[in-house]
C-alpha cells in the first residue's frame, strides 16, 4: 500500500492523516477537521493530533468496522447498555438464588407463583438467568473487542507523536493551547531561574535553540492502555474458566463418620467427615445480648467440619479397593477453606440430626405394658430388608421413606428427599402363629395399623443421629490470571489517574517569550506549577483561554 506522507515546513515527514505535525506541532491545514480544530480556537490535544487509522481510512469494510469499534462513543454506549442490562437481572432473584423453601425451584413455576404476571414475563424473557445468556455474553465480548481496537488505534500513533515531539514548536501550536501567555522583555536570568524552578518541580527540561519543553508524568498517558490490557486479561480468564480442565466445581454431602470419594477428582481423593459442629453465640454475653434477643435469641457463631482428606495411591484398577494415604487433616469453616493439591473444600451447607440408626421393639397389640417380644436396629445408612429372630418371628421392611411426608394430592406417603430426616417404614410382621403377615406403618410419632386387626405392633425405642456437612469442591487454575488482570488494571488506573502528563513550552520571540501549558487532567495542578515557576520573574501568568473566552464554539471531539 502506498502511504501518503505529509511534509511539514519544519522538515518532518508525517504520516497521512496527521493533524498536528509530530515534531513542531504546526496544524496541518487540510486535516484540521479530523480533530474538529477547524471549528474552535483551541487545539484538540487528546491524541496529540496524531494520525489514527480509524479517522484516516474509511474505504473498505474492514476500515468501517475498525472505525466503528474504535469510537469511544460506541464504547460508552456498549458500557451503558451492559449497565442497564445488568440491573434487569436484579429485579427478581436469579435462578441460582431461588430460595430453598420456595414453592418450587423450577423457574417455570417459581416466578409466576411468586411474582405474578411480572414474574411470568421475567421468566419468559429469560431474565432469570440473564448473566449467562448468550446476548449478555455477546455484549461483554463486544466491549472487549471495542476496548482492543480502540486502544490499538490510538496507542501506536500517540506513542510515535510523543516520541517525535521537539522542544521547538510552531507559534500556532502554542497560542492555541488552553494555557497561554505572552511576555516581553525577559532577561536571561529569568529564563535560567525558570529552568531551575522547573527542575525543582521535577520536570524533565529539554531545550533547542532557546526553545524549552518541560515535561513530567508522560508515563501516565499509558495508564488507560495498561488498564485496558488488564481488562482483556480478565475477559480471557473468564473464557478459560469455561473449560472444565481449568475450572472444576462440585459438591459433596458427607455424613459424620463417613468416608467418601470426593467428586470431580476422578476417584483420586477421599474425604472422611469426623464431625460437624455448630457453635452459637452465648446469649448472655453482655456485649451482644440485646442484638441476639432482637435476632430471636440465637445467633450462629461458627459452622465447622473436621475432616481428613486421603489420596488413593492405587487408582490403576477401577473398582478395586482404594489404597488410602492421608493427605491432610483439618477443619473447614466459613472463611477458612481447606486446600490440598490444587483443590479447595468450602463449608457450604449442613444438615443436622439426620437419623443414622433406629431401634424398634415388637410387642403384642393388646399388651398394656408394651412388653418387648423382640428388638432390632436398622442401620439407615445401609438398611437391610429382613430381620429374622430365633423365636420364629420375622420383620420385613417393605417400604422405606427416608424423608416421609403424606402427599395429599395423591393420597399416599412419599419421601421428600433421600436423606433420613424423617424416616418412616412399612413393615410386614410374620409371626410363627399366623401364616399371613400383618402390615404396620411406623414413623416418628406414628404407628398405624391399616387393617385395625393386627395382633402385633412395632414401636421406636431408640435412635442415633448424625450431622451432614455440605462441602463445595473447587479447583480453579484461572484464579492467578484473574489476579494478574486485576493487578494490571489497578496499576493502569492509578498510573492514569493519580499522575498527569504536564507540559510547558517556552518559545523565545524577540526579547520576550511565549509560554503555553497543557495537561491531560488536573488543570488546577499545572496552573499551580506555573505560578510557582514564574514567581519573582517578569513572565506573565498564563491565561486559561477556555474559561476566558467562555463562549468557545461547541467542541465535539471524541
Amino acid at each position: 500500500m502506498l502511504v501518503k506522507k505529509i511534509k511539514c515546513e519544519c522538515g518532518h515527514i508525517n504520516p497521512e492523516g496527521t493533524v498536528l505535525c509530530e515534531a513542531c506541532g504546526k496544524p496541518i491545514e487540510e486535516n484540521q477537521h479530523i480533530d474538529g480544530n477547524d471549528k474552535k480556537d483551541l487545539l484538540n490535544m487528546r491524541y496529540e493530533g496524531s494520525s489514527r487509522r480509524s479517522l484516516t481510512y474509511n474505504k473498505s469494510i474492514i476500515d468501517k468496522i475498525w472505525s466503528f469499534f474504535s469510537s469511544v462513543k460506541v464504547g460508552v454506549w456498549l458500557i451503558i447498555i451492559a449497565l442497564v442490562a445488568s440491573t434487569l437481572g436484579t429485579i427478581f432473584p436469579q435462578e441460582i438464588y431461588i430460595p430453598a423453601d420456595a414453592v418450587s425451584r423450577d423457574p417455570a413455576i417459581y416466578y409466576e407463583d411468586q411474582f405474578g404476571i411480572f414474574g411470568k414475563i421475567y421468566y419468559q424473557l429469560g431474565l432469570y438467568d440473564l448473566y449467562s445468556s448468550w446476548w449478555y455474553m455477546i455484549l461483554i465480548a463486544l466491549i472487549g473487542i471495542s476496548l482492543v481496537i480502540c486502544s490499538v488505534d490510538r496507542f501506536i500513533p500517540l506513542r510515535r507523536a510523543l516520541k517525535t515531539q521537539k522542544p521547538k514548536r510552531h507559534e500556532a501550536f502554542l497560542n492555541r493551547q488552553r494555557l497561554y501567555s505572552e511576555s516581553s522583555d525577559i532577561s536571561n536570568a529569568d529564563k535560567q531561574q525558570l529552568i531551575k524552578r522547573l527542575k525543582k518541580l521535577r520536570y524533565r527540561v529539554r531545550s533547542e535553540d532557546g526553545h524549552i519543553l518541560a515535561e513530567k508524568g508522560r508515563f501516565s498517558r499509558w495508564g488507560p492502555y495498561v488498564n485496558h490490557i488488564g481488562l482483556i486479561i480478565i475477559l480471557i480468564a473468564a473464557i478459560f474458566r469455561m473449560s472444565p480442565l481449568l475450572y472444576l466445581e462440585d459438591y459433596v454431602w458427607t455424613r459424620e463418620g463417613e468416608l467418601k470419594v470426593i467428586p470431580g477428582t476422578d476417584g483420586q481423593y477421599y474425604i472422611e467427615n469426623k464431625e460437624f459442629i455448630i457453635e452459637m453465640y452465648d446469649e448472655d454475653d453482655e456485649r451482644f445480648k440485646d442484638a441476639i434477643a432482637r435476632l430471636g435469641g440465637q445467633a450462629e457463631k461458627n459452622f465447622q467440619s473436621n475432616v481428613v482428606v486421603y489420596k488413593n495411591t492405587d487408582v490403576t484398577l477401577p473398582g478395586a479397593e482404594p489404597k488410602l494415604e492421608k493427605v491432610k487433616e483439618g477443619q473447614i469453616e466459613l472463611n477458612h477453606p481447606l486446600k490440598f493439591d490444587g483443590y479447595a473444600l468450602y463449608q457450604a451447607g449442613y444438615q443436622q440430626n439426620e437419623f443414622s440408626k433406629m431401634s424398634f421393639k415388637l410387642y403384642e397389640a393388646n399388651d398394656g405394658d408394651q412388653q418387648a417380644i423382640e428388638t432390632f436396629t436398622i442401620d439407615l445408612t445401609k438398611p437391610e430388608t429382613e430381620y429374622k429372630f430365633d423365636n420364629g418371628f420375622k420383620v420385613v421392611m417393605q417400604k422405606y421413606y427416608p424423608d416421609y411426608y403424606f402427599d395429599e394430592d395423591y393420597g399416599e406417603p412419599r419421601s421428600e428427599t433421600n436423606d433420613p430426616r424423617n424416616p418412616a417404614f412399612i413393615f410386614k410382621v410374620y409371626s410363627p402363629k399366623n401364616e399371613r403377615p400383618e402390615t404396620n406403618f411406623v414413623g416418628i410419632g406414628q404407628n398405624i395399623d391399616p387393617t385395625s386387626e393386627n395382633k402385633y405392633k412395632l414401636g421406636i425405642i431408640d435412635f442415633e443421629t448424625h450431622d451432614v456437612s455440605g462441602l463445595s469442591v473447587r479447583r480453579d487454575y484461572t484464579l492467578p490470571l484473574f489476579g494478574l488482570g486485576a493487578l494490571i488494571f489497578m496499576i493502569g488506573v492509578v498510573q492514569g489517574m493519580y499522575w498527569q502528563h504536564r507540559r510547558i513550552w517556552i518559545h523565545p520571540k524577540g526579547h520576550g517569550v511565549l509560554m503555553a501549558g497543557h495537561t491531560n487532567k488536573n488543570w488546577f495542578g499545572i496552573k499551580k506549577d506555573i505560578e510557582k515557576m514564574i514567581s519573582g520573574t517578569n513572565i506573565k501568568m498564563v491565561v486559561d483561554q477556555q474559561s476566558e473566552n467562555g463562549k468557545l464554539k461547541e467542541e465535539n471531539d471524541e
Partner: protein
Amino acid sequence: MSDLTSLSSTMLYTAFAFYSIATVIFGITVTDKNKQKKKGKMGAVAISITITGLVAQLVYFITRWIAGGHAPVSNMFEFMTSLGMGIVIAFIIIYFIYRLNVLGLFALPIALILIAYASMFPTELSPLQPSLQSPWLYIHITTVALSQGVLGISFVAGLIYLIKQTDQKKRSKKNMWLELVLFSLLACVGFILSTVTFNVLDYSATFEYPSGDRMLTVEYNLPAIAGPPDSELITEGVNDAWFEAPGWLQGSNAAKKFNTLIWSLSTGFILYGLLRLIFRKRVGAAIQPLLKNINADLVDEITYRAVAIGFPLFTLGGLIFAAIWAQIAWDRFWGWDPKEVWALVTWFFYAAFLHLRLSRGWHGEKSSWLAVIGFAIIMFNLIVVNLVISGLHSYA
C-alpha cells in the same frame, strides 16, 4: 466493656456536634462578603473543627471496634456511619488541595444526614455471623466507604455546580430536576425527623397478618398509614392503618418499609413546602445567591478530580477486595448477587463518566448531572438493595 460502648456512642454524638458547628462556620465564610482575609481565617477555623470532629468519630470507631471485638462495619448502622466518615475524610483531603470553603457547606450536611440516617437502624453491638468473620470484612468495607466518600465529594461538587449554574429565571426541566434532588435530601431528613419523633413518643403498633399458611406479626414504630395486606391490628389504643400496602410488595416486612417510605416522603414534602413558603422561590433559587462568587470551572474540576481519585479506590475496594473475600468465604469470587451486580453497575457508570469526560462537550453541567446520578446509584445500592432486594448482603 459497657463503659467503652457508652464512650463510643458519646464520641459519635460529639463528632455529629462538631460537624454541625463546622457546617455553620463554612456557611459564614460563604456569606461573608469581600473580606478575603477574614474568609481565610474562618475557613481555617471551620476545617479545624471538622478535623476535631473526625478525630472524635475515629475514637468512636476504634472504641466500638474494641468493645465489639470486630470492626464496626458489619450492619447498616455501622456501615452508614463509616460512609459518613468516608465523606468527611474525602472532604478534608480535597479541601487541602483546593481550599474551597463552600464544599464544606454542602459536604458536611451530607455526612450529617448519613450519620443520622444510620442511627435510625438498630445501633446495639451485634455478633458477627460466620460469613463475616474475616479480616477482609474491614479491608473491603473501609476501602468501599472511603471510595464512596470520595465519589460523594464529586456529587457535592456537582450539586454546587448545578445550583450555581442552573437558570432560575423561569421554570424549566432542569430546575425541576434539581428541585427533585434537593427534595430527596429533604426526604432523608424527613425520615430522620419522623423516626426520632415517634421514638421519643415510644410509639408501637403491632399487626398480625397472614403469610402463606402462617400468621406473622410486625411491629410498626411509625403510625400505620399503610398496613400489611389482610392484617389485623393487635395493639389497643392506636389508630388502624388508613389503607393496605399493595400485595405485590415482596420481601420481609415490605409493608412496614413502604409505610416508612410514605412517612419520609410526606415529612420531606412538608419540609420542602415550608422552605418554599419561607423563600417564596424554588429551593435551588434560594441557595443560588450564596454561590455567586464561586468559580464554576474550579467546582467542575473538583467533580472530575474526585471521580478520578475515587474510581480506582472503588475498583479496589468494591470489586477486587470484594472478589477476594467472596472467593474465600463463598467459594466464588463473583456470584451475580444483587449487591455485586449493583457494584458492577456503579463501576460501569463511573467508567462511562470518565470516557465521556474525554470529550469536551461533557464538561460542566453534564458532568455534574452524571456525578449526581452516580451517587444516586451508590445510595440505591446501599439502601434499596439492602432493604428491599434481598440477597446475601442484606443486613436488616
